[in-house]
């Protein structure tokens, strides 16, 4: 029974990690159909931001809180630069963007290796996040509660921004119908740059948070990327709601499957489930309806 509750919680927790990693992707992929393979490296940049901040500030707790906004800026600026230098020019070639950003990811990984060295570095977990909390008879690590909380905050913030700010309305207009939005006087260029900034910034935040549970090394981002993409694919293009549901569903599925089988088989199981799922709903859980031929 303890184990069952533990696993249920694990599903939520794994789901929120997936969600943090996938939220930014969902925005950029959804808005521009751009597959940013360097998203994982933006997460890694967030991890190293947390590391560097901690080296400078010293106190683990303070540095974590400072690193979150800095990570957002670091990721955001990297994304903004990437959009301005490359992605903007590859607009009608989404598959090429995928390969180009993969190249960017390779370069960023090697940069990290040359700057910080290949071995993993340690980001100390602040005192107030160490240990666990007893919840319904199982011990739940505080770091995971923190990440779940952060995921909720991030989703709420993104939803609020999209819904209630002028910038957010522009983003939604462009996601809904790019050409129509342009005829309505919205500069989709500016909006693209903005979306990419926010989406990549979220990757940076995710990176900072993930140092609490995982390692910080040049290849850190890669371990999250494929799963994050699957979340976006299963959730449906550009739908935050879809990403949330898909992330939690996949997280829970994996955790439960893993209990009765092995972690490796769980990964394979996730893939099979998604292929079968796409048979039923080829456009993901939630779709924006357009009549576009593309």
């Amino acid at each position, binding site marked *: 029974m303890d184990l069952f509750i533990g*696993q249920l919680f694990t599903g939520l927790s794994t789901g929120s990690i997936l969600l943090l990693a996938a939220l930014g992707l969902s925005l950029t992929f959804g808005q521009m159909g751009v597959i940013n393979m360097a998203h994982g490296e933006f997460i890694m940049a967030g991890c190293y931001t947390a590391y560097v901040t901690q080296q400078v500030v010293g106190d683990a707790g303070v540095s974590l809180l400072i690193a979150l906004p800095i990570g957002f800026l670091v990721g955001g600026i990297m994304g903004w630069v990437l959009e301005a230098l490359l992605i903007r020019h590859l607009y009608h070639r989404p598959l090429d963007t995928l390969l180009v950003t993969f190249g960017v990811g390779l370069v960023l990984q090697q940069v990290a290796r040359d700057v910080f060295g*290949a071995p993993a570095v340690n980001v100390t977990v602040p005192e107030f996040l160490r240990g666990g909390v007893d919840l319904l008879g199982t011990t739940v690590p505080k770091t*995971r509660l923190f990440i779940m909380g952060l995921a909720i905050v991030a989703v709420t913030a993104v939803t609020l921004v999209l819904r209630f700010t002028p910038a957010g309305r522009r983003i939604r207009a462009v996601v809904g119908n790019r050409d129509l939005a342009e005829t309505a006087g919205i500069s989709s260029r500016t909006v693209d740059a903005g979306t990419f900034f926010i989406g990549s910034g979220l990757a940076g935040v995710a990176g900072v948070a993930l140092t609490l549970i995982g390692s910080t090394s040049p290849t850190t981002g890669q371990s999250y990327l494929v799963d994050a993409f699957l979340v976006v694919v299963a959730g449906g293009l550009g739908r935050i709601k879809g990403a949330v549901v898909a992330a939690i569903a996949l997280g829970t599925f994996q955790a439960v499957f893993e209990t009765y089988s092995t972690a490796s088989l769980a990964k394979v199981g996730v893939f099979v489930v998604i292929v079968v799922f796409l048979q039923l709903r080829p456009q993901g859980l939630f779709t924006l309806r357009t009549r576009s031929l593309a």
Partner: protein
Amino acid sequence: MPHRFTTLPSPARTFARTLAASVAITGLVATAACGSRAGEETAAAESCVDTSGDTIKVGALNSLSGTMSISETTVRDAIYLAVDEINAAGGVQGKEIEIVAEDGASEPTVFAEKAEKLIREDCVAAVFGGWTSASRKAMLPVFEDNDSLLYYPVQYEGLEASENIFYTGATTNQQIIPALDYLAETGVKSLYLVGSDYVFPRTANAIINAYAADKGIEILGEDYAQLGSVEFSTIVNQVSASGADAVFNTLNGDSNVAFFREYANVGLTAEEMPVMSVSIAEEEVGGIGVENIEGQLAAWNYYQTVESPANTTFVEAFKAEYGADRVTSDPMEAAYNSVYLWAATVEKAESFAVEDIQANADGVSFDSPEGTVVIDGDNHHVTKTARIGEISADGLLYTVWESEGPIEPDPFLEGYDWAADLTVTE
């Protein structure tokens, strides 16, 4: 495009002819060029090692790029250190050792390819390197087919003995079995096994299971995480729920970071449920964070803190060469030893030839940082002293237990009755 495709020649016929021609050429050339068949003797490839000059070439084959570069670059440093020291002392057979360096790129196929290049193109007398079992398995046929020598410096899962490989890291009876002995001595009655999903952990756990069955230790669970996995919630939950006396950890690389953080965070401590690790050395402790792993155990043959004159010299020389902040670890020491063992064997054989080295290897010894190591001529492994270390707050490991003298290598565990069912000896 000025032509009209309507006037193009019949495509199907062209196609059929091209196809037929290709097949014919291939068939013709292939059959004309057939070599020896199974069971026939193949003319052994002639060694191209040049022993006439003032220098002798050896290969250093480690991953400098890819996931394994983290660990393997440290081994590379140790190899260079040993070669420099030997050269400073007059070389081998009066010849200066010259290193031909290659990158294994963390991929078994690249290891095989580069090994072949080192042997056939660079004509090296021996190769030092390799880390993962996959890389060793990939290189093994290359060294056997070309009749050349590999010195492999990492502890591994045993069950192998090639004429063309010298294994200077521990085999299972020099690391895993002593670790189990230690745990049994300290009163551990039940174990939980956690490992990465590849060959070493699976073989190690098979041995542990057999050992446990014999000694009445209960195995409460056995979990494997995908290599590189960072999601350890489920596994740690299960470990915690099992209430085992100790955990035997064969995880590899980054997974250790996630595992130990999760372990500490659910409130498990070294006092109530110690973790015995066989892949965590000085290099890894920093990345995991000392605060997450302090007090936990590791099983190796060497720690930087081993107290011996040879080790003092080794550590000082290493830090002088590569910086005071660098640490030395077991695989580095084994790699360092491997160069010295090769040199000593060459001196004894007074020859660089593979067959002479093989014939003279038995009994060659070296006063290494971990203590004296001696080559076993039968299985090409070396004697090693087993040590259990505890991770301390300064990030180093300190010996808490040590075997009574060096342990003879027994890669096929022939000396252990309980292991009889585990393996089929060749």
